């Protein structure tokens, strides 16, 4: 209709412009831009909320309250009958917590015969003082009888109170730190004995039931082992499979079926891979439970489809003219692929691999059934020994009852996020560095 009307309108003297819906179309564009901006703003708000909740809770985990006092390594307590020459086990089993307690009692000027007070005093310092002082003595038995200044970890409750995480306004009986201990804390921090320092233990220690001595060390090593094995296994297998499927395999029903299956596998819930790992690697192949190797094999299976899909897309994106030119100059098919196509596809392959690895790094579900959701104290010497993973450590800490684990949970999340940011930054840099556009 408008088309037919146009000539007459144009001829009239008022000359109303032909309505091509320009206002409506501009409005639609503005609306769409607005929706887009809203979507991005919403995303940013949620990201900011997530980061804020993690960082505001977690930043305190990087500090730990310590007590630095002169400890007298009294021979009467460590080795009352002077048997250490003949029986070195005495040093192993000595009552080391008593040394720490006596040092604090002396520093605070508490009457040593007041049993209730002395009990409260010994609750100021972490139970890990036993191993700490024992290791000092075992390393150098000559310190027995001398007085050394030692930095001990404060108990987790004291640490939480010092960081203001315990509500001190409630009745004394319903909190873990009593008024007397608060007084001593004040006294000690005024004397410079009780201080906050960087929490190196958070990075170096293994799991512990005592928050102040707990760390992500074992989990970090476990995750590292798994990532290395996944990389070594999944990258070559994935790349080989995709090169064959993309460049050599005939296009027929079978390869179509394989392609559909690979796409399906990428969407299978990860717990399914855990079940598979349990029945194949542990029950059938007899591999050890809780070992990083089994975890890595399960994660490899999980990462493979992602890598294959990314690699095939990267190979497809290489222009056919490159292949035609190489073949035209007399290169064999192998030479064409490995000398020309693969290097051009490498940035895409690496990006896909790193995203797959980052995905695998954050998985806990497949690890549950193969025994890696576990409390592991000792560092694994090899991937065959029991270990755990970073997200598992976060999950386990999130379920702990102690207040001090709340900040440590968020602290561990921050470490995991940084790990992921570094990996993704690597992916972006690799892409920037090697990407070719046509």
């Amino acid at each position, binding site marked *: 209709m408008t088309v037919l009307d146009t000539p007459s309108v144009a001829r009239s003297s008022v000359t109303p412009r032909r309505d091509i819906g320009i206002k409506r179309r501009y409005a639609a564009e503005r609306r769409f831009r607005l929706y887009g901006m809203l979507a991005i703003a919403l995303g940013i708000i949620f990201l900011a909320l997530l980061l804020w909740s993690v960082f505001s809770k977690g930043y305190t985990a990087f500090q730990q309250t310590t007590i630095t006092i002169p400890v007298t390594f009294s021979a009467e307590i460590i080795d009352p009958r002077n048997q250490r020459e003949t029986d070195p086990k005495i040093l*192993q*089993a000595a009552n080391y917590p008593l040394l720490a307690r006596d040092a604090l009692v002396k520093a605070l000027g508490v009457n040593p015969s007041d049993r209730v007070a002395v009990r409260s005093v010994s609750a100021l310092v972490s*139970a890990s003082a*036993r*191993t700490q002082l024992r290791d000092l003595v075992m390393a150098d038995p000559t310190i027995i009888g001398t007085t050394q200044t030692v930095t001990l970890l404060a108990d987790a409750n004291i640490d939480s109170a010092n960081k203001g995480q*315990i*509500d001190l306004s*409630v009745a004394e*009986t*319903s*909190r*873990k730190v009593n008024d007397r201990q608060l007084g001593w804390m004040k006294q000690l921090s005024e004397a410079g004995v009780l201080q906050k320092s960087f929490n190196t233990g958070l990075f170096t220690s293994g*799991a*512990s*039931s*005592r928050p102040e001595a707990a760390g992500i060390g074992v989990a970090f090593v476990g995750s590292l082992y798994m990532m290395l094995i996944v990389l*070594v*296994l999944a*990258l*070559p*297998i994935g*790349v*080989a499979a995709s090169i064959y499927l993309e460049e050599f395999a005939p296009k027929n029903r079978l390869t179509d079926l394989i392609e559909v299956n690979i796409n399906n596998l990428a969407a299978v819930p990860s717990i399914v891979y855990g079940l598979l790992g349990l029945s194949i*690697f*542990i*029950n059938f*192949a*007899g*591999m*050890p*439970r*809780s070992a990083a*190797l089994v975890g890595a*094999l399960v994660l490899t299976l999980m990462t493979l489809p992602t890598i294959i899909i990314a690699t095939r897309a990267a190979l497809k994106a290489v222009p056919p003219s490159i292949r035609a030119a190489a073949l035209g100059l007399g290169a064999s098919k192998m030479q064409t692929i*490995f000398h020309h196509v693969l290097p051009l596809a490498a940035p895409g392959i690496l990006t896909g691999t790193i995203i797959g690895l980052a995905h695998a790094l954050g998985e806990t579900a497949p690890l*549950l059934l193969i*025994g890696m*959701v*576990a*409390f*592991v*104290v*000792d560092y694994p010497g090899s991937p*065959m*020994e*029991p270990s755990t993973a970073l997200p598992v450590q976060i999950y*386990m800490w*999130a*379920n*702990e*009852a*102690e*207040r001090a684990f709340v900040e440590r949970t968020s602290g561990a999340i921050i470490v995991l996020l940084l790990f992921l940011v570094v990996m993704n930054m690597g992916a972006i840099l690799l892409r920037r560095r090697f990407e070719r556009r046509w």
Partner: protein
Amino acid sequence: MNAVKLTVAALCVSAAFAGSAIARDQIQIAGSSTVLPYAKIVAETFGETYPDFKTPIVESGGSSGGLKEFCRGVGPTTIDIANSSRPIKSSEVEACKGAGVTDIQEIKIGYDGIVFATDASNADLALTPKDLYLALAAEVVVDGKLVANPNTKWSQVNPNLPDAEIAAYIPGEKHGTREVFEEKMLAHGCEEAGAAEAIKGLISDKKEAASKCIAVRKDGKAVDIDGDYTETLARIASNKTGVGVFGLSFFENNADKLKVATVNGIVPSAETIASGEYPVSRPLFFYVKKAHLGVIPGLKEYVEFFTSDQMVGQDSPLADYGLVAAPDAEREKTRADFEAGKTL
């Protein structure tokens, strides 16, 4: 080319690893998340006290999951100990036997109290099994008939309770705690309210009548928590008048945020639970594979260490954490039974 070589090499390496199911020198434990914190404390202290042995690995995964792993067979790739917050079922013992795990030793480590708590800002709360039954049952008896629970406020259940909407956060059905809650609170409350008799009159099938007593309402007033107590705590923090179910040790660690309810006028504590005055408690166990004793280094020592008074006695680290120690005679019996090699 390199990629292919690497793949082959990696496969060979993993095949070599797989072939050698090497003997294990580290105790492996799995099971109940209620027992987990206690097992962790013992495992850690064990590792520190016996430098010759490695620290045991403690997995979480629930009592049933742990026992299932436990019953998978004998050998280095199976676990040595299953932690459980309930006694092993006869069906599980059968499953164990079928897989070759014939000799199982049961160790009772102590008792766990189950407490009801609300936000610390609330007034003191005194509950009885009857109140909880009337507030949370799916159907109650009104004028001799079973009707959908009409109560919406605590004060309708018992005028002494606060005038607030009923909201209870109870353990989900996969938790061992749920069974204790049903058995010790709902079933008792059902009888006290006189509903058990009335239901028997209405429904002839005994099993069905019993299940009516412990059926929990599904209209949103009773919320199943499938996660851990941390989740219940978060729910209470957002709904201050809600009542949550916690373990005694969890409550004690968060006593500044929670106010515990008395049950039948008894305040839950290690003393009232040990004496049996406080009604809602349950024993905690772990099960040891006898065939692994003497094969896995340190297993016997670990069990002995766990059952010693310095770990589970009245004034021990586990008691400090919230475990209710078993009476002296019972602990003595547990140790003697283990020593004598008594099996299920």
